[in-house]
């Protein structure tokens, strides 16, 4: 029997006992549906994290800090020529050893590093529009290569001298704009108090309005020009050595660097006494947690699929039993044991395919409907989050895995059919 005929016969045999096939397909459907949904949740959340990641930082950027000395064996010795600054990541009030302007050249010299910029922390007191109510504002820098999830306008442009800022949607109405679009192009004013106690203001143009993300949802995003202007304004009165001491600096590397090259840069910096983390590192641990949860959920779905596999065994054993005579006849007519095995295992694989394909389609439909409901309800505070996302590769993997399970389940009945003795099967008195 040719391969094509074998497949065709297996498919038509599947539909011979409709009730039995339907019930088995249903069992697989439930497993495949669950598996597709749970892995869809994984895909959706991870995809959301990825877009959020690109809004917190570009892919070719590392944040560099001085390596914190091991303090478990006692306090670190004071070095007279170093400065301590407030830690950006540690416990409130804790300090870290600062990186000074003089050290930047050393970092710049590391192989693979394109440029080094200090991370300036701008802390304006308030933001206001047109003399209206003043609101507290926290500023996040904008590095080129980073992308914002925008509701209106465009990202603040880098490489320009004009001061530009992107407002989060939550600021639009309080500041007195009528809509997101209305805010774009308007000028807002930041109030800054310097170290001498004097107040100054800095004006900036609103380039766009950003959607609230999972992280930094209430941060304003300023371009380099604005950040520097705010930093300079707040640093009036500081000694130049304090002004030029940074808790962290950001360096850029070639975006096409491989993971190996990136880790080489990291270890070179480590040798110089710096810790470097990429955005990927920062978000990696978060993703690990999501992946672990999805893995557990997928585990349940796979258990359901294994149960469905026993359904396949049962269905096909019945079918082999019923078709004893037919199998005997085919073998008497010269059909080889391998082909008989193929016929029944293909039938199992086809049942698996039916169940998983219908399950995947069902999951996509249900997921899409659920996303619609959630976007207007539970998750309306997180625009841009599609909780259940389907990627064709993982759907294909699910279908293939189910077909694999079905094949394994089918081997028991298929072997029984293949081993059948034609004379025994055709015996009658």
């Amino acid at each position, binding site marked *: *029997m*040719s391969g094509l005929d074998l497949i065709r*016969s297996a498919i038509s045999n599947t539909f011979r006992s409709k009730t039995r096939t339907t019930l088995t397909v249903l069992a697989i459907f439930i497993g495949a549906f669950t598996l597709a949904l749970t892995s869809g949740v994984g895909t959706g959340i991870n995809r959301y994290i990825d877009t959020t990641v690109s809004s917190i930082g570009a892919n070719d950027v590392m944040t560099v800090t001085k390596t914190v000395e091991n303090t478990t064996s006692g306090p670190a010795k004071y070095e007279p020529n170093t400065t301590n600054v407030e830690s950006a990541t540690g416990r409130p009030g804790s300090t870290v050893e600062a990186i000074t302007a003089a050290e930047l050249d050393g970092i710049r010299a590391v192989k693979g590093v394109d440029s080094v910029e200090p991370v300036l922390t701008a802390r304006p007191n308030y933001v206001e529009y047109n003399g209206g109510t003043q609101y507290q504002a926290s500023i996040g820098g904008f590095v080129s290569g980073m992308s914002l999830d925008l509701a209106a306008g465009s990202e603040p442009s880098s490489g320009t001298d004009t001061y530009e800022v992107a407002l989060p949607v939550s600021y639009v109405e309080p500041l007195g704009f009528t809509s997101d679009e209305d805010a774009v192009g308007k000028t807002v004013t930041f109030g800054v108090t310097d170290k001498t106690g004097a107040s100054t203001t800095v004006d900036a143009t609103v380039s766009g309005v950003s959607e609230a993300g999972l992280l930094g949802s209430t941060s304003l995003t300023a371009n380099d020009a604005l950040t520097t202007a705010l930093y300079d304004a707040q640093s009036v009165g500081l000694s130049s050595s304090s002004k030029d001491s940074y808790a962290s600096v950001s360096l850029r590397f070639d975006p096409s660097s491989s993971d190996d090259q990136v880790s080489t840069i990291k270890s070179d910096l480590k040798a110089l006494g710096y810790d470097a983390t990429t955005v990927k590192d920062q978000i990696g641990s978060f993703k690990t947690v999501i992946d672990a949860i999805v893995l557990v959920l997928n585990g349940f779905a796979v258990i359901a699929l294994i149960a469905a596999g026993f359904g396949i065994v049962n269905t096909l054993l019945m079918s082999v039993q019923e078709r004893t005579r*037919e199998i005997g*006849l085919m073998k008497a007519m*010269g*059909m*080889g044991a391998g082909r008989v095995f193929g016929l029944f295992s293909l039938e199992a694989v086809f049942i698996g395919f039916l169940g998983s394909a219908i399950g995947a389609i069902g999951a996509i439909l249900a997921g899409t409907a659920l996303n619609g409901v959630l976007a207007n309800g539970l998750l309306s505070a997180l625009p841009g989050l599609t909780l259940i996302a389907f990627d064709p590769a993982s759907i294909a993997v699910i279908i293939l895995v189910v077909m694999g399970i079905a094949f394994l389940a089918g081997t028991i009945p298929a072997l029984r059919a293949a081993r059948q003795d034609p004379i025994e099967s055709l015996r009658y008195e």
Partner: protein
Amino acid sequence: MPVPVLAARDVKKSYGRGAARFDALKGVSLDIEEGESISIVGKSGSGKSTLMHLLALLDKPSTGAVELSGRDAGALGGRTLNRTRNQTFGFVFQQFFLTPNTSVLDNVTLPLRIAGVGGSERRRRGMEALERLELADKAKNKATDLSGGQKQRVVIARALVNEPRVIFADEPTGNLDTATGAVVEDILFDLNRRTGITLIVVTHDEDLAAKTDRSVFIRDGLIVDRKGESA
């Protein structure tokens, strides 16, 4: 003297072992010439079907040999054995063994499908076989919707479709009333006479046996009589 198409050389066949051992054939020798019709006759349990299964290469003798065109069939490997059975033999059983819910044409072309013959060629040869048995108009019917006589004609069409050299008929009329049984007999003998297909009929019915060129009578696993031997 021509080489016999099939020959049994002192064939013995026993089932079971030790105390449960049962000798179904106790040494049978038989030559079957190309183009003849021969009947194997005996009471139920005498060993007729066992002999037929050995001749049809469905089973191997415990001792002795079965020869196909003068060559020991015991030496054939699984694949060759399957191909030989598919291309050389046609089977007609007492029970029809038609696949229910499948069209008459699909039932008839089963041996061709097993042989790996392509779809259009299969249809052509299947229809040809059905036409020879005047069943062409039933090609699309379900096999289960036919009368007993029609079913047995479908079975004969299926046995013919791969143009075999030998047709084995095990109690071909056992399930039919006398009139339709006679029709089926006529078809089989007509085929044998007109196309020269070797016909091996297994039966307990002496009237049917009398219509074949030659008969061998079996009792308790031994040939006890031969009729119509030429030499």
